[in-house]
């Protein structure tokens, strides 16, 4: 009988990773004044994935993205994008990147279209057809020639996505992209990101504190808290299913006795919870029955990533 007592599931294995990482964080530290905002971040982002970057408010997601896009310089360490250092080889490294950093502020006195033209002019590989295609895709075609000052929050976010994907970047970095989008928009974005990774092999690095959101769109999630990486795990992976199989045994009044007998597990809100695998469940049931403890029900406790996340980050207090 195997009872896994470790409260924290095993971090996702990196075995699935194929090819060189698109982004490589090498012991990145960011200090502002006396405050250390990012503490030694080391992380590889595998290619062709939607990679989630999860953390509570103030955990350092935006700061990390600012460093990835060269807006801020790391205090020490380096970030390598597609084999090129963002600090030493900025122009080469950034040319593979499309990004939204916090809110995508644009020139409000220009139309959406003229804003896109601004960014198109800064590259040699964006044609007029491509601009039209992106406008079509983001659903802005009816309003694209209106001034951005007349746009709603969601429309601005859509325009932000449009400028980020304009040049078909290898790496798409999105800082809370669903902020302000309606359910329809969120869904479209999610489907689009999946499609991008599948069809064009784009790597998407997306930050969020919306956990349910991340579960739906990410292949891998890195979790940071207070500037420290605390976990990296693959979603929809087998390791995930097995490691997090928690089961509730309904043994009525004799819960303490059952716990003592088991020598493992825990009592969580009045229920006996055991982490074990398939065989383990059968064995435990057998054990209880033999000891004369009636088992009224056995139920898999499905914990969403959200539960796990809250547990790990201690309820998500702002640090």
């Amino acid at each position: 009988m195997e009872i896994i007592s470790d409260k924290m599931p095993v971090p996702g294995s990196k075995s699935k990773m194929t090819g060189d990482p698109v982004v490589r964080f090498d012991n990145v530290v960011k200090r502002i004044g006396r405050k250390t905002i990012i503490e030694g971040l080391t992380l590889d982002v595998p290619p062709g994935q939607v990679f989630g970057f999860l953390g509570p408010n103030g955990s350092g997601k935006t700061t990390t993205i600012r460093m990835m896009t060269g807006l801020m310089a790391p205090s020490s360490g380096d970030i390598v994008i597609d084999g090129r250092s963002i600090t030493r080889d900025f122009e080469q490294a950034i040319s593979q990147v499309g990004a939204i950093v916090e809110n995508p502020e644009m020139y409000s006195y220009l139309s959406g279209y003229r804003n896109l033209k601004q960014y198109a002019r800064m590259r040699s590989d964006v044609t007029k057809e491509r601009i039209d295609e992106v406008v079509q895709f983001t659903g802005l075609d009816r309003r694209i020639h209106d001034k951005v000052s007349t746009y709603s929050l969601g429309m601005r976010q859509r325009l932000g996505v449009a400028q980020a994907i304009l040049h078909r970047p290898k790496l798409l970095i999105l800082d809370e992209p669903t902020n302000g989008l309606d359910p329809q928009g969120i869904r479209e974005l999610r489907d689009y990101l999946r499609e991008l990774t599948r069809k064009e092999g784009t790597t998407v690095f997306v930050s969020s504190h919306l956990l349910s959101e991340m579960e739906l769109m990410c292949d891998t999630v890195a979790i940071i808290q207070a500037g420290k990486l605390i976990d990296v795990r693959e979603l929809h992976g087998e390791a995930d299913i097995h490691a997090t199989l928690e089961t509730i045994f309904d043994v009525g009044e004799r819960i303490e006795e059952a716990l003592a007998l088991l020598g493992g597990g825990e009592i969580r809100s009045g229920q006996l919870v055991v982490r074990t695998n398939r065989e383990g469940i059968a064995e435990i049931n057998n054990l209880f029955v033999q000891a004369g403890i009636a088992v009224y029900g056995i139920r898999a406790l499905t914990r969403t990533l959200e539960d796990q996340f809250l547990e790990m980050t201690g309820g998500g207090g702002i640090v």
Partner: protein
Amino acid sequence: MFNFFRLVHNENIKIYARVRTWIMLGVLGLVGLLMPVLFGYVSEDIGVWSAMNTLLQFWFLPTVFTIAVAADTVAGEFSRGTIKLLLIRPWSRIKILLSKYIAVALFMLALYALLVGLGLGMSVLLFGHSSGTTDILGQLSGSLSDYFWWSLLYRLVDCLIYVTMAFMFSSVFRSNSLSVALTIILLFMGGLITLLVNPAKYELGRYLLFANMDLSQYISDETGSYGVSSLGFSLSVLAAYYVSFLILTFWVFRKRDVAA
């Protein structure tokens, strides 16, 4: 290099798409058109070039307008937050800032061209037939047209210095209003400062920026307003200030963490 001009083109669009810019152009256009008419009323016998020399008294208008645009071009991107999406393109910060500086300099030239062009056109139309030797200010000698073109050139030099100063404040403080206020205060206080640290009395005064501005001081007197300097000396001092302003501007902009 061709691509770099697309950056300048972008900056031009950002300047000329604003209503504010067209108000400035409108005001300058009116001044250029109406002032010669006014001069015609005030003075009986006025020539084209004396009218133009008088019109140049309005040099502070295009100067202040360009200062406003220069301050906004960098600080405005920070306050609007647009700087983030601008800097994550495959261009070094130096080149992006340079494109802004060039666009501002072009805007300055455009404003002066508008004022002088319209003013000259009106003056020729109104006073082209008169003998035109009378100087309405009654203090000039020599060829009035030569005097005008030299003064214009010197005004452009002054304007460029002030605009570069505003550009520097904008890059350093990232505040539009602070940059405009500081530059305009210095523009009007400059004379007072040189009065206090009079170059004729104090050696130090000769190295002040403001003692060396308005190079037209050397048209009437080779040793300048204070009788202790020369055109070459002033040009060197101005160049030193100018280069230091630019170095500081670019250095700060390149190093800065963008947290807007």
